[in-house]
């Protein structure tokens, strides 16, 4: 397609977009909104060395990172620009070994005009998440049900970001006397050519550590001194795309489907980041049902493959499924989730690069007013990872568990013009 130039780094894309739009609409700026939250954790974990520290552990907080930890320090700015444009910027600090102390997870401009005759378009430009998680529906792309999102959402937070242009058309049937709404989505993006490299390197994981736009993620490697991986780069000058649909029955049930293809050219190397363009495509589906007596049921499925072609085509097939049930009692909520995940490298589940695992998550959440949220979560992951034998001389099969307590304080400010 040749739409993207290799010289244009991800650093320039969302920021330049946001800055120019801010200037463009500064004269018509309206009241902005600032959200701040501090999430502190107390962790007991027997997890193996975390993927963040170049290990094969499935957790963000491993055995060496127990005790009092920073869950997330988050600041988000929402700025209406004129009538139908809004700029949204998300910045976070995670207090781990990343390149920047504070970094962005999302930064985009949204165009959301008034509906006409039941139809409403929406356009997003910048860096943001593809619309495939019905789980991470809370502020800052977090899940309100558990501390740790599903394996699918964990992977999305780790490796995927739409840096480009997304268009949606929504048919608001519920405003026309019908029982359902329908939404169609299409996007063109760049700077996500390494997507898939983490699945091949360390497999699926269960964590709430979203990769920042300019940040790095660990990667299992023999030399721990080597720099970590940077994920949001354009390598092959080919734009990727996704198309999706969302079907909503009243406000009770939502079905999301998405087809994603980063159209990576697997033969193109990127020595500057010690990686290649990964050819990654997948299908995902999610169904969320909420009942009048406060039950939530959530099913998610992901199926795809990723490949590189350094001298021959190497393919990793991956899939994951997740089922969650949650029940609220006013400010209290209990949630239970089961995750299954598998990767098959070159069709052989015994090869390093393959894995097979599943996880159980139990969480209790209590919201005290609008400012405080307390949560207690237990996660247990069992995974069979042949690379543990080859890379670290450890048994392939490992069971990791953690108990995590979170206290989060939230503030928001409105700034009137």
């Amino acid at each position, binding site marked *: 397609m040749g739409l993207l130039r290799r010289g244009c780094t991800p650093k320039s894309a969302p920021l330049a977009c946001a800055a120019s739009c801010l200037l463009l609409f500064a004269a018509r700026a309206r009241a902005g909104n600032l959200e701040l939250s501090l999430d502190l954790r107390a962790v007991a974990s027997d997890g193996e060395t975390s993927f963040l520290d170049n290990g094969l552990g499935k957790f963000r907080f491993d055995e060496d990172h127990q005790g009092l930890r920073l869950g997330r320090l988050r600041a988000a700015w929402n700025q209406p620009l004129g009538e139908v444009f809004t700029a949204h910027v998300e910045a976070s600090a995670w207090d781990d070994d990343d390149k920047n102390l504070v970094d962005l997870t999302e930064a985009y401009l949204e165009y959301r005009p008034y*509906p006409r005759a039941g139809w409403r378009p929406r356009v997003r430009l910048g860096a943001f998440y593809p619309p495939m998680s019905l789980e991470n529906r809370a502020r800052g792309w977090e899940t309100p049900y558990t501390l740790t999102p599903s394996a699918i959402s964990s992977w999305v937070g780790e490796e995927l970001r739409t840096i480009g242009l997304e268009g949606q058309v929504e048919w608001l049937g519920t405003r026309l006397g019908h029982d359902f709404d329908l939404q169609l989505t299409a996007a063109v993006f760049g700077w996500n050519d390494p997507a898939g490299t983490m699945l091949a390197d360390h497999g699926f994981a269960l964590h709430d550590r979203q990769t920042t736009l300019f940040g790095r993620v660990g990667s299992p490697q023999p030399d721990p001194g080597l720099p970590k991986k940077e994920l949001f780069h354009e390598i092959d000058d080919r734009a990727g795309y996704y198309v999706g649909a969302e079907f909503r029955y009243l406000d009770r049930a*939502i079905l999301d489907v998405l087809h994603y293809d980063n159209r990576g050219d697997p033969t193109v190397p990127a020595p500057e980041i010690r990686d290649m363009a990964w050819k990654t495509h997948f299908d995902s589906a999610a169904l969320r049902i909420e009942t009048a007596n406060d039950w939530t049921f959530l099913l998610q499925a992901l199926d795809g493959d990723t490949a590189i072609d350094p001298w021959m085509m190497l393919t990793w097939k991956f899939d994951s499924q997740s089922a969650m049930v949650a029940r609220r009692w006013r400010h209290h909520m209990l949630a239970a989730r089961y995750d299954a995940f598998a990767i098959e490298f070159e069709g052989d589940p015994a090869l390093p690069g393959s894995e097979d695992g599943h996880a159980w998550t139990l969480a209790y959440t209590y919201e005290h007013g609008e400012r405080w949220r307390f949560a207690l979560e237990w996660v247990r992951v069992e995974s069979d990872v042949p690379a543990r034998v080859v890379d670290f001389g450890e048994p392939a099969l490992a069971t990791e568990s953690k108990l995590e307590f979170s206290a989060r304080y939230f503030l928001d400010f409105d700034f009137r013009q």
Partner: protein
Amino acid sequence: MRSLRAALIALALAAAAPASPSTLSITLQKRDGKPLSGAVVSAEPEGTPVSAPAVRAIMDQVNLAFVPDVLVIPVHSTVQFPNSDAVSHQVYSFSSARQFQLPLYRGKPYPPVQFDQPGVITLGCNIHDNMLGYIVVTVAPYFGRSDQRGEFSVPDLPAGRYRVRVWHPLLNEGTALERSVEVGEAGETVEIRLTKSLRPAPLTDRPHSWGY
């Protein structure tokens, strides 16, 4: 308020319908026999098109919800849409009976909106998709909403034949329920039981921060 309005309307209609006043009582039941509350009920004399006088009504926005959830007004009435929330709202309607939009605002910056056509107007907020409200514009001189017992009554009603209409946002029986009712000297009692279950009510107690 309702009795005062009914009295005024009865006065206005006295010349057109000289019969002695009676009471029309309407009782609404769901399919399972439980009371249907909050339904909009109107009674319109057949062959005598007389509307209630226009009013100035208020549809507020409180805690990310339209208040009241359903507002019923006579045709040609005006409605003010104050925003009592700390966050901005962007109110719209693309219903055929009245299309309008109120650009992003807080407080009460806009003049009232006039409603000159009868019908149901569905309200939304372009910022908060969970917000859903309704305005029912009626040509009937007698109207109101059923109470917790599913009852609505019009006292001091001139005897005659009336068209009774029932509407509820969750009604599954087509656009509206209608009955032709003869109100005699002794008044009339009408019981209407739905033949289909209501559609599921919106989930109102989810945290706003969860989004859709």
